[in-house]
């Protein structure tokens, strides 16, 4: 527990917390009557969800003709939204898996909420390919099940089927990882509750006792799930990019797509985590657990991935020119200067230029700018997918087929509706479950609490001195 901590590490838990205080602080929002802010936010979110249900019903009743897709532009807002949501759904697993493997302690403050966000974002993403099928009731055709048509199997060579496997696996594994992490904390809520609440939390905490052997297995399981999720999270957006990259459309058929999509996914995912955490920490009074230190770390990730995405945009342009292939050159000239120039400009401004603000420490630590930037990045990344999909399709090989596309109210309603779905789920989660991983916060308290490290440290451990003495001994 009392491992040596570098003196330059800043505390991640402020306020000189005790174990009991941590339990109190994090369980409290689930135990009190919802605030007016929450009720209003929930009503707005549920209105969005209602709009979503209405638009889905409309699409199914009237048919896909209620959208403005045409023979030239077969993918529009639907697939743009799908890729956007899947991308957002990458931050949770990245934070909980990759940062666990890298032993980044700051992940404990935000991993729970980020994983929840991942699951809800993947739920939203999954809606679009399904509705887009048109005949939703035949959606089960995408799974390889024995059927009476031969059996005629699905095409295992198709990236669209790879996507089915990737997204379903990602959803299931993220859900298991998240819930297994949540079980000990639900037990904490259970042991504080009485009456009906106790019965409910008893049901969902699976009979957790906190036995030493169970903790050992729990840690072993978490580590292996993190190890599995790391290549998984990279594979998911790689496979999403294959939907485009394995086609023969100029502007899509590029080998840069997998790494560029993955960087973009992390970028947009972290932006959404920031949007949610800036609000949640304030509303739930969790500023001492999700500190400016956490916000700053995430802004650094946003700066890095935003810059990677920027380099990818420029590389694409350069390679298109350098390839000497006229169709490729045209596709990119059209992206920048064609009828959708405004989308390209929006993408470049929001994704590449604006994150450069985060080179300044004061900007990285400013809540206002973090929030503004997170919205910018979310918009920018939506534009990116729109640019890739709609502008490329709008100008294909035959000028006689060229087209232009604007969404109908149904398509806009579906997008706004999934925001409603997402926030409804997140608001419910923030009410019923601890939004910060209680057990994990407790386990880093003695190496990251501000009473142990940093300028206000009061306690010193004899073990630390031992280690320091030992290390000096080896130097002599």
């Amino acid at each position, binding site marked *: *527990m009392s491992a040596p901590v570098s003196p330059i590490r800043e505390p991640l838990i402020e306020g000189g917390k*005790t*174990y*009991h205080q941590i*339990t109190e602080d994090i369980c409290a929002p689930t135990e009190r009557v919802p605030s007016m802010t929450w009720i209003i936010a929930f009503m707005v979110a549920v209105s969005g969800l209602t709009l979503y249900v209405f638009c889905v019903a409309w699409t199914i009743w009237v048919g896909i003709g209620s959208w403005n897709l045409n023979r030239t532009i077969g993918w529009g807002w639907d697939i743009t939204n799908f890729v956007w949501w899947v991308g957002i759904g990458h931050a949770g697993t990245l934070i909980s898996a990759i940062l666990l493997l890298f032993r980044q302690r700051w992940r404990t403050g935000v991993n729970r909420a980020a994983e929840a966000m991942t699951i809800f974002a993947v739920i939203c993403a999954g809606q679009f390919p399904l509705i887009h099928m048109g005949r939703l009731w035949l959606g089960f055709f995408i799974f*390889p099940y024995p059927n009476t048509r*031969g*059996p*005629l*199997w699905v*095409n*295992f*060579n198709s990236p669209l089927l*790879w996507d089915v*496997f*990737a997204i*379903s*696996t990602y959803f*299931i*594994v993220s859900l*298991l990882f998240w819930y*297994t992490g949540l*079980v*000990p904390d639900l*037990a*904490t809520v259970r*042991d*504080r509750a009485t009456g009906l609440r106790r019965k409910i939390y*008893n*049901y*969902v905490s*699976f*009979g*957790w*006792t*906190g*036995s*030493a*052997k*169970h903790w*050992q*297995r*729990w*840690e*072993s*399981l978490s*580590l*292996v*799930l993190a190890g*599995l*999720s790391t*290549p*998984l999270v990279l*594979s998911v957006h790689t*496979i999403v990019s*294959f939907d485009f990259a394995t086609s023969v459309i100029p502007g899509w058929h590029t080998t840069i797509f997998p790494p560029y999509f993955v960087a973009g996914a992390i970028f947009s995912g972290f932006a959404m985590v920031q949007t949610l955490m800036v609000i949640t920490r304030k509303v739930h009074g969790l500023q001492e657990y999700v500190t400016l230190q956490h916000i700053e770390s995430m802004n650094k990730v946003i700066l890095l991935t935003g810059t990677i995405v920027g380099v990818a945009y420029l590389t694409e342009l350069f390679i298109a020119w350098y390839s000497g292939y006229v169709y490729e050159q045209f596709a990119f000239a059209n992206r920048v200067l064609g009828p959708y120039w405004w989308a390209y400009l929006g993408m470049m401004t929001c994704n590449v230029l604006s994150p450069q603000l985060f080179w300044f420490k004061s900007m990285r630590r400013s809540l206002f700018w973090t929030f503004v930037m997170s919205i910018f990045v979310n918009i920018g990344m939506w534009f990116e997918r729109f640019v890739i999909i709609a502008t490329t399709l709008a100008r294909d090989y035959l000028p006689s087929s060229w087209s232009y596309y604007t969404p109908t109210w149904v398509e806009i309603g579906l997008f706004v509706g999934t925001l409603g779905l997402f926030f409804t789920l997140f608001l419910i989660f923030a009410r019923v479950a601890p939004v910060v991983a*209680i*057990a*994990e916060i*407790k386990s880093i308290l003695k190496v990251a609490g501000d009473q142990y490290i940093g300028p206000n440290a009061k306690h010193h451990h004899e073990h630390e001195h031992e280690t320091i003495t030992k290390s000096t001994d080896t130097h002599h």
Partner: protein
Amino acid sequence: MENQNKEVLYGLYDDEEILLKAVRQAKDDHLNIMDVYSPFPVHGLDPLLGLSESRLHQAGFVYGAIGTLTAFLFMSWVFTRDWPIIFGGKPYWSVPAFIPITFEVTVLFAAVGMVVTFYTICGMAPGVTNPTLDDRITDDKFCIAFQTNGASEAEVDRLRIFLSSTGASEVNSKTI
């Protein structure tokens, strides 16, 4: 589930470092600890309690391998035996195209298998109620528990003295 109820004598400690010292002391005194409960994983506890490393990850490897074989052999069977179709002029047995799905199914089997195994061997499931000694164990108390079925008064007293002398803030007994 054992039919016989367990009589348990347990001490609650306020800090994991006091707990670790107590467990070390118990080991030196050759006391037979039934279990230790804590609000978060206490590192360094497993070797003291004589807990061997979890073999869950080995099970995970086996599940993953089953997933790999299931996916790869199934796709191979479908496209070479059951219903061969040429897609895009590629060979029937187009191995590189099978890689993504093989990978996803490997991860899926390993993850689901491990999670199911974890809950099964821990005796956990939705709705299960396992007896707990104190509600504060999931909050801020660290607990050492001794089973005292059939123990003589003198032995129980010895354990009681051990618990309070090693820094337990509370010593209680309970039948679970």
